[in-house]
């Protein structure tokens, strides 16, 4: 890979869940750039979330290895690792009802010992992040009472307090309206400017077109292609990844991906049911 140094390298990684025959990831090789936004694209069940969990170190690969800034997970202490890699998973605010500021404060856990409690500097870090994310006014609201967009911002604020060099976002824009989508994308762009590597999964190629510098395409656990967004978001690559014909058009200087509504001449293209059969 040319360009900026790699934040994350994935070398020949496979992962198979217990009691499953087919691997969720199958021999994936990647070198993901630092200080950049990487979008991992693929249909449902393509292995996107598994890839994030393997990079996180939560799922140990069946084969291969993952390095973050040159070092493997098992070669670092748990707390040191979580200062390097953070995760915002889908709707991970928990079943119990914390106030927003209390929830964001959980991001300081990697900096605290097992029996240690947050101190003034941790509270100050929370205040700073609430100010930058515009969540100050919601600080005493219960997380469960927030809209899905506000909850997503809250989870990202928790990750900002954690301040990892590599931030993993699992489907950060699912179920968000346009205003919240804009807010989350703004935070992601801000993180890139600050030098963080952001790796997000999405099944929507338009999200990748809007924000990503680097794109990874997965299909059934295998790597289809990866590289700079402008080179990877092509009709051929995306049609191969999703199993449906797509059109890639340029509108106002931005790339837009649309599904083709008419079948191609001479036959039909495979549909979603065929993808997962």
């Amino acid at each position, binding site marked *: 890979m040319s360009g900026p140094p790699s934040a994350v390298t994935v070398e020949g990684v496979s992962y198979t869940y217990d*009691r499953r025959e087919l691997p969720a990831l199958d021999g994936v090789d990647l070198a993901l750039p630092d200080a950049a936004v990487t979008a991992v694209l693929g249909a449902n069940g393509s292995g996107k979330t598994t890839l994030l*969990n393997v990079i*996180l*170190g*939560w799922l140990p690969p069946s084969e291969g290895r993952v390095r973050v800034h040159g070092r493997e997970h098992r070669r670092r202490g*748990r*707390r040191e*690792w*979580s*200062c390097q*890699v*953070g*995760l*915002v*998973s889908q709707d*991970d*605010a*928990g*079943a*119990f*009802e*914390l*106030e927003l500021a*209390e929830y964001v404060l*959980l*991001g300081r*856990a*990697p900096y605290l010992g*097992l*029996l240690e*409690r*947050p101190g003034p500097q941790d509270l100050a870090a929370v205040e700073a992040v609430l100010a930058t994310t515009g969540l100050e006014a919601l600080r005493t609201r*219960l997380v*469960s*009472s927030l809209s899905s967009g506000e909850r997503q911002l809250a989870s990202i604020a928790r990750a900002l307090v*954690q301040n990892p060099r590599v931030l*993993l976002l699992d489907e950060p824009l699912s179920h968000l309206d346009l205003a919240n989508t804009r807010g989350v994308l703004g935070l992601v762009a801000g993180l890139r400017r600050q030098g963080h590597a952001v790796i997000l999964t999405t099944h929507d190629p338009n999200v990748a077109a809007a924000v990503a510098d680097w794109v990874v395409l997965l299909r059934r656990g295998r790597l289809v292609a990866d590289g700079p967004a402008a080179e990877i978001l092509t009709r051929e690559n995306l049609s191969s990844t999703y199993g449906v014909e797509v059109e890639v058009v340029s509108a106002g200087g931005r790339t837009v991906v649309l599904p083709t509504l008419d079948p191609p001449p001479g036959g039909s293209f495979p549909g979603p049911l065929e993808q997962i059969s």
Partner: protein
Amino acid sequence: MDRHRTLLLLAVLVAATAASLLLGRYPGPVMSSPSAILDDDLAASLVLNLRLPRVLAAVLLGTALAGAGFVFQTLFRNPLVDSGFLGVSQGAAFGASLAIVCASGSAATVQLGAAFFAVLGLGLSYTLGHRIRFGGPVLRLLLAGIAVGSLYTAGTGLLKYLADPLRQLPDITFWILGGLWAITWPDLLQMLPVTIPALVVMAAMSWRLNLLALRDETAFSLGAAPRLERLVLLIAAVAATAAVVAKAGQITWVGLIIPHLARRLVGWNARLALPTSLVLGGLFVLLCDDLARTLRSGEIPLGILTAMVGSIAFLVLLTLRRPGIRA
């Protein structure tokens, strides 16, 4: 503000503990003055040797059950869980019944049997939970716990059926109803080595409990070892429960209702809600035990009172919902 409520509750607990020492049927009919007790050697001896260990045991019992209930509810992300969902309470009842029917039925064998089968209940639930082939780890453990609990309940039913109806069956029934009438200093001292360290572990990890209520991978990403830390807290909660129910019998509803009350008072942050739950649990059982020993000339089993008061309080709590609190 919320912290002040917890401190106020602690002050009430201390005052109630002191007042409970004056409460009883001797030397006065209900409440005696400190001077009346100090002037009467028999009364002083009664307070020192019987009432004081019983009052302290009531506080310890309530603290342990409420703390364990709080931990169970948080770890299982389910506010309707207590030790009964892991086969712990049912294991204690089975062990005590087994000791009464098949062994000598002495206090020592009953306590040993109750403690052993309570801990075995968690062990079985945990082991079987790993072998269930669907659902997440929390659901698997709960399902296994419910099955183990039912198995124990069936076993206790069988033992009651086989028990001598005049000699053994009343003992089983009375143990299952629960009470502190037989508590002495040695009993209290035997509870302490297990209960106190378990409570210290729970209290020390109270803020950490917030992390462990998150999804496993999120907790992991924040530097936690979710499975190991949950196991440590589960062992502490079960050990505390087993140590107190082995002496006091089945005291229901404390582990279920008190964590809810605590969250009502101070919010859901476990850093404050857990200590509040501990204090409130001690106060609740202390007051119930005061009623148990003074309402009638004979003893009312404590488990009946905690269930009665707890279930009514639970209904009131459910019908008086505060915005943002999910029961």
